């Protein structure tokens, strides 16, 4: 099976007032179809930046300097080089084929629109044809069963609508509705699309286990709790059944018991929708709970990638080992990693972890190690291997 | 210290702010060295009263003796604008100084303590703000008798409420920060918290407004003097000089610009002075905002 995402030699740099920050350096990573890949790292590791780079949302003053991100579009059966796409094509992918869930649900939702409106927006943007098709069908049934004087008066109106929705259902972006949406009085002709989107919204809210979805859809974000908001954001991300769902620390701001509910939800989504998930987190426990494979990053570089059991039971990279030792567990002595996190502006030469590494070799200071496959499915970037 | 150095460097880099600084420095130079630039003639008692060369009412154009000409009543314009710089700084700095102190004290008390103190102070500022500022200033000057001192008092009374409000708002915001609570946690008294922690963090927007306002105060004082409600006749004050030129703005029927020097020269001094402070204030605001955003 083809890999869903293939990142090769990705470099993202930030041109700041104080200097150039190498946020991501020489990254090679694959996301397979149907898997949940976790990226684990601390501040400055580049994990969030990787997620943003896939969607080409790297904020100023950052730039994707070089590299390639190849996305295999299952529906089209084609590979796309994401970094070379036009912005218009990229926008068609965001929210549709690849979607993202951010850390702060309160910040990701617009406070002046209801939840339902915001989720419907996704359908209106990406699924116009399907909405047009459904609207056409509805008008069709109206034309068939509509009887009586009132219905008779409306019939020509409905026929006109029918033609309009037929057009939307067939072409991707026909001229008529675009014109009509600009003219104030005629905009209401397109309200049926919005109604169809609302129905789909209620369905997707049910999928993310929000109780009483019709009522919740009419609420504003500030009326919901953190966990519900995050579910709403996940619903927005899942609306168009994306092939890749990117989650950037989605449970970090939630309480532990709510986080447990969220992780259950993610597990169910994995099974039901069959999407791949890129799960960025700094919490090793969460990664162990939900990921199939885990990638560990440090200071913008990939240290180790392996299946979840492999990496927790047999960590190979010294940083991975040190990180696991530093997690407080009952009955275990807390091991610290000496030194401080690599300075983003002036990272150590060669391997970025070498000043803090207990098993550093002299060559670690000169050159960095390339990612090597040490055992089946287990890749490490370290001179020790 | 690197904080200040960075600020100074940014001030100097921006051409507009550099222009503002240069203008203010030139004016300061003029004000300090006024006795050397326009020496007071022998026997003249009060250096702030412009020396007269005769008693004719018609202004005379610039000549060798009077570099900028003379205005109605034969007051030397050159002397007037040079010493007027001193008056301008005097008025601007004193008024802003008092207004800042009053505004900061009342505003911090209102913002930090809230409750009844806040309500009382805010209602008082409401009362003052209910009056149109220039009208209130004119009324105060008229009641106290026209003089530069009454102008300063009037402008102080009219300007302090906005500062109290501004500081109060910023203190309200800073009050919720963790480090304020931490200072109380280590046992700091309210006084110490306000002076040492809250104010230094809240004061920058107020300082920006103050530097912009120095120009505005001087302009208002000039306006009052122009209307005759300011400095006494013959006093070395820019507004006063323009007041003299009131009858001569339009000039004679044949040559409307005949007496241009009487109103334009003091006017230009006012203009550049105010512009200098405005540029400086704008520059302050620009360097403070991105710095706060970057942090």
């Amino acid at each position, binding site marked *: 099976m083809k890999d869903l995402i293939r990142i090769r030699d990705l470099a993202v740099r930030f041109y700041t007032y104080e200097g150039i920050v190498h946020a991501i350096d020489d990254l090679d990573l694959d996301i397979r179809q149907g898997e949940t890949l976790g990226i684990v790292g*601390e*501040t400055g590791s580049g994990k969030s930046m990787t997620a943003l780079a896939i969607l080409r949302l790297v904020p100023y003053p950052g730039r994707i300097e070089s590299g390639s991100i190849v996305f295999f579009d299952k529906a089209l059966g084609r590979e796309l080089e994401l970094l070379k796409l036009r912005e218009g094509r990229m926008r068609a992918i965001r929210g549709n084929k690849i979607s993202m869930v951010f850390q702060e649900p309160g910040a990701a939702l617009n406070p002046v629109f209801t939840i339902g409106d915001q989720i419907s927006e996704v359908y209106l943007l990406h699924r116009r044809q399907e909405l047009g098709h459904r609207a056409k069908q509805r008008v069709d049934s109206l034309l068939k069963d509509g009887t009586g004087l009132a219905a008779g008066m409306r019939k020509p109106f409905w026929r006109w609508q029918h033609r309009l929705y037929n057009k939307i259902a067939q072409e991707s972006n026909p001229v008529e509705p675009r014109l009509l949406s600009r003219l104030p009085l005629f905009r209401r002709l397109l309200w049926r699309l919005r109604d169809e989107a609302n129905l789909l919204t209620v369905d997707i809210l049910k999928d993310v286990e929000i109780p009483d979805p019709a009522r919740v859809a009419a609420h504003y974000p500030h009326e919901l*709790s*953190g*966990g*519900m908001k995050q579910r709403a954001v996940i619903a927005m991300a899942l609306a168009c059944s994306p092939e890749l769902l990117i989650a950037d620390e989605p449970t970090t701001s939630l*309480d*532990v*018991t*709510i*986080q*447990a*509910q969220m*992780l*259950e939800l993610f597990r169910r989504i994995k099974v039901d929708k069959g999407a791949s998930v890129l799960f960025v987190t*700094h*919490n*090793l*426990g*969460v990664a*162990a709970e939900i990921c199939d494979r885990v990638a560990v990053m440090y200071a913008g570089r990939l240290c180790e990638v392996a299946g*979840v*059991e492999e990496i*927790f*039971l047999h960590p190979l990279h010294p940083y991975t080992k*040190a*990180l*696991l030792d*530093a*997690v*407080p*567990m*009952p*009955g*275990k002595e*807390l*091991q*610290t*990693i000496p030194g*401080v*996190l690599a300075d983003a502006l002036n990272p150590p030469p060669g391997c970025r972890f070498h000043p803090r590494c207990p098993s550093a070799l002299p060559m670690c200071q000169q050159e960095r190690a390339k990612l090597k496959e040490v055992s089946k499915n287990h890749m490490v970037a370290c001179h020790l291997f | *210290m*690197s*904080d200040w150095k960075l600020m100074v460097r940014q001030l100097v880099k921006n051409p507009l702010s550099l222009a503002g600084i240069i203008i203010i420095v030139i004016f300061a130079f003029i004000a300090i060295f006024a006795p050397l630039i326009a020496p007071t003639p022998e026997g003249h008692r009060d250096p702030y009263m412009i020396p007269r060369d005769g008693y004719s009412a018609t202004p005379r154009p610039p000549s060798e003796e009077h570099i900028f000409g003379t205005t109605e009543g034969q007051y030397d314009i050159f002397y007037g604008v040079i010493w007027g710089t001193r008056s301008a700084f005097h008025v601007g700095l004193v008024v802003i100084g008092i207004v800042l102190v009053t505004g900061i004290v009342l505003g911090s008390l209102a913002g930090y303590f809230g409750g009844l103190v806040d309500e009382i102070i805010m209602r008082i500022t409401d009362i003052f703000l209910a009056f149109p500022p220039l009208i209130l200033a004119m009324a105060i000057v008229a009641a106290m008798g026209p003089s530069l001192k009454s102008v300063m008092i009037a402008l102080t009374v009219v300007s302090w409420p906005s500062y109290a409000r501004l500081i109060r708002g910023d203190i309200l915001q800073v009050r919720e*920060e*963790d*480090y304020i*609570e*931490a200072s*109380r*946690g*280590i*046992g*700091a*008294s309210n006084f*110490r918290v306000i002076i040492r*922690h809250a104010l*230094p*963090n809240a004061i920058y927007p107020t300082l920006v407004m103050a530097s912009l306002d120095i120009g505005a105060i001087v302009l208002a004082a000039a306006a009052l003097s122009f209307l005759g409600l300011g400095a006494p006749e013959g006093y070395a004050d820019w507004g006063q000089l323009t007041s003299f030129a009131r009858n001569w703005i339009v000039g004679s029927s044949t040559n409307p610009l005949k007496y241009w020097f009487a109103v334009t020269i003091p006017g230009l001094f006012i203009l550049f002075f105010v512009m200098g402070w405005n540029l400086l204030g704008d520059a302050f605001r620009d360097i403070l905002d991105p710095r706060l955003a970057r*942090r």
Partner: protein
Amino acid sequence: MNALVDIRRLKKYFPIVGGVLRRPVGMVKAVDGVSLAVKRGQWLGLVGESGCGKTTLAKTVVRLLRPTGGHIYFDVPDEVKVEIEELESLGKNSDKLTSLLKENDLATFPGSRVRLFRRRAQLVHQDPFTSLDPRMKLKDIVAEPLRIHRVLSGEASKTAVKELLGTVGLSAGQMERYPHQFSGGQRQRIAIARALATKPEFIVFDEPTSALDVSVQAQILNLLKDLKKEFGLTYLYITHELLIAESVCDYIAVMYLGKVVEMGRPEEIFHAPRHPYSQSLVAATPVPDPKRRVGRIVLPGEVPSPANPPPGCTFHPRCSRASDECRELEPPLEPVGDDHYVACFHPL
């Protein structure tokens, strides 16, 4: 009983103002009757999720907030406490009672006594990025407590600052710098150095590592361990992460919606919790062990708002063992084992 800090039936309510006249229309019961004792030299962990009142409790214990009810006894001999309880049970508001309370109950201390208290107890905030004055230099931040309490000044204070910085692992050469030039972990160290300045006996930590990375967190926790041993400190440690509490604390109290629901030793709470909430908390905590995944008890529903707590046992809407009794009566905190207390009618 050598309790350094003895909290009895502590309450902290916040009024909700509403309407045009801004009258109180309700109360947010952030802390609703908490009784805890921290022994001298103990590291007590207070665990709970957001909205349970742990931060409010932390701030009330150090008198940054004024308690609405209850008593806080700091280093008060047992006889005095007994006397106060007796006088209170008699019901009368005698002068003797008021004066005793003024002398001994931190909740009713006048300002001057609170200042004295501040030399002996300190609070370290959660967010190191906002708890230091950005316009103060490092040396001034750490020296400020010394200056306020007039302990030291001038050269002596400078030496003390250097020593404090060394204790927390910072070099004296950075004394002239500003907070924004330091990393999160370093800033938290600065906050800790500031807390140690007046040589306190008791330090309250409000989630000090939640804003920090895993490796930095480990460093700070080890630092706290060393400091406690070196200076004989007593800690009240607030956290929402059960793993941290289990790993470093001597004793744990679990809070839910303003009340303590279970108290006990870490091993017992982690391996044999008796309150249904503690059990789901333990089950919901992810550990970096891929094998420990099955059999998780996922707690339904949301945490109710502290402005409108459910009647009876506040946990009953989400509890699988709730009975009619739970819906009407509040379960008291009762012993169920050796130094193990639970507030539940049907403990596990």
